[in-house]
């Protein structure tokens, strides 16, 4: 089956301007050559620490940012060339759920208007039919019909995130980006939302790009996972394969740093020293080498390519040549 969404060699550098004339003094290399594809009914998890560029990747795929280079194809069509009607159709088919359910909903809009907005904008429904469809959508995400005439402040964080999900899914998209959808929620509520998101995919076959900093959450949600570090994908594999045998030293360090809720196994180890370097002044060679516990001579000189080490399991590291 063909990919629903395919990203090829995405590059996005943000200029840093300074001084009176706003000269470009440097570039922040947020995304520096990222490729992936997502199929129908599949979830690709994108995991990495703050500043690694995962949200920028999300925005590029959503066509909210234009890449400097590279392309995003939706069902084989390069989205950059779409205009007018075709672009509107694309926006219907690609939707997003944001992290913070408090700031992503308009406090002065009734739920009816918030969730119904995609229908109204795309002229898919109006009047009584729109209200009907909003009610049906609310029921599907576990809210009640009478919630239609309420404001966001009347809901808890978890309920607000359900509203955000309803708004994203009401146009029947084929592809949905989740950008840290549960980071602002407590674990007991997070579990409710994660189960819901999974169940909706099982029912409707959506393709998901699931962005998170939490490896546990990403593992639970994803079929395949891509690990990002400083603007590039350093390792990508099927979820089981990645957790059974992580290849890249960064992935291994990330897993070891994760505190497991089990005091019998003091697993948490700080394998990495120091902080993530600035994406403005990238280290030469492999961008992970200053923190890498297994650094070799070549790492400081040449950047490793993302290559297949085992079937379906790719890593960008000189350890696997």
């Amino acid at each position: 089956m063909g990919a629903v969404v395919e990203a090829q060699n995405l590059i996005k550098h943000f200029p840093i301007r300074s001084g009176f004339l706003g000269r470009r003094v440097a570039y922040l290399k947020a995304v520096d050559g990222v490729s992936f594809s997502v199929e129908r009914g599949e979830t690709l998890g994108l995991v990495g620490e703050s500043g690694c560029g995962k949200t920028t990747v999300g925005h590029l795929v959503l066509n909210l940012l234009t890449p400097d280079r590279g392309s995003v194809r939706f069902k084989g069509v390069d989205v950059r060339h779409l205009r007018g009607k075709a672009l509107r159709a694309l926006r219907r088919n690609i939707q997003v759920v944001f992290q913070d359910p408090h700031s992503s909903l308009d406090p002065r809009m009734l739920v009816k208007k918030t969730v119904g907005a995609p229908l109204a904008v795309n002229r898919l429904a109006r009047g009584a039919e729109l209200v009907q469809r909003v009610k049906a959508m609310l029921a599907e995400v576990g809210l009640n019909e009478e919630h239609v005439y309420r404001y966001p402040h009347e809901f808890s964080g978890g309920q607000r995130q359900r509203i955000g999900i309803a708004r994203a899914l009401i146009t029947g998209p084929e592809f949905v980006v989740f950008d840290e959808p549960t980071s602002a929620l407590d674990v007991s509520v997070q579990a409710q939302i994660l189960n819901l998101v999974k169940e909706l995919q099982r029912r409707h076959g959506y393709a998901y790009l699931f962005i998170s900093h939490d490896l546990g959450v990403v593992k639970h949600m994803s079929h395949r996972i891509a690990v990002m570090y400083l603007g590039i994908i350093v390792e990508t594999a099927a979820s089981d394969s990645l957790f059974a045998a992580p290849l890249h030293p960064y992935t291994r360090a990330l897993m070891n740093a994760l505190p497991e809720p089990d005091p019998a196994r003091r697993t948490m180890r700080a394998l990495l020293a120091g902080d993530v370097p600035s994406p403005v002044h990238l280290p030469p060679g492999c961008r992970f080498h200053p923190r890498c516990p297994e650094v070799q001579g070549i790492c400081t000189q040449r950047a490793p390519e993302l290559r297949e080490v085992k079937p379906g399991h790719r890593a960008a590291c000189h350890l696997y040549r």
Partner: protein
Amino acid sequence: MSGPNEPLLEVRDLAVQFFTYQGTVRALEGVSLSVARGEIMGLVGETGCGKSVLARSVLRLIADPPGKITAGAIRFKGRDLLTLSRREMRRIRGNEISMIFQEPMSSLNPVFTVGSQMLEVVALHQAVGREEGRRICVEMLRQVKMPDAEQVLAKYPHELSGGMRQRVMIAMELSCRPDLLLADEPTTALDVTVQAQVLAILEGLTRQRGVAVLFISHDLGVIAQLCDRVAVMYAGGIIETAPAGAIFAAPRHPYTRGLLHAIPRIAARQESLAVIPGSVPSLVDPPPGCRFHPRCAERFFPCDRVVPPFYEPAPGHRVACHLHAGEEGRRSWERS
């Protein structure tokens, strides 16, 4: 005075209320907790359960108004902190009990260098000259494994990363050699790899110096990796206390069990996560009886009427849940 077996800190039946326009928020009710010398005690709970209020109450940092400690006692080294004068309390803060907050940027002054802020703390608590003070600061920074300790003194807080700022805070707080450190979500704002570094430093230094820690977190993983004993809070009360091994291997309260099953883990395969239905109740108008009963799958007749007392199903394992009541407990429900 304090005997050798007396806990360093003992909170008994503490109640804190906030008087707001929406009504009286009963933030803490009947909270009892103890921390032994040199122990790392974990306090875990979800947003709004009152864990930070508890830590602030120990240092008497509850803003009054709107807040007020309405009942209970906080005994530290045999003295009740709630009866001390402001001056006596000021001598305790920093010297004997210090505190680290979640966001180190808001605990550091942005317009002074790290060095001048550290020197101020050192000068306030120890009688030393400038040169000696500076030497102490560098030594402190080395102990929290700060790279280029000398240079860091000349930097401003915004020039440091989140992890480095939190190390500066740990260095400052431990410099006064307190007996108790209150750590309120100190690594929540950090990435996991940096969190692991900071926690290793915090655990190493406090264990080595015998400093007791009350470690507050919403993250059961962090609590499991760090703490000797754990107290679980829900909606303004402690509902279960036990040694860390016991609480994770055999949790007794339905809420604790629910929380543990709701975490997506990398070491296990879970098709769907266990869910605690509903959300946390309002503390203006909390549910009667057990505050957890509206969300509890195992509730039975006394739960919505009788506030559960603590039962001790195993030594050192205390749980506030009617499921663990013996014959005596059952008789008391019949009376009420």
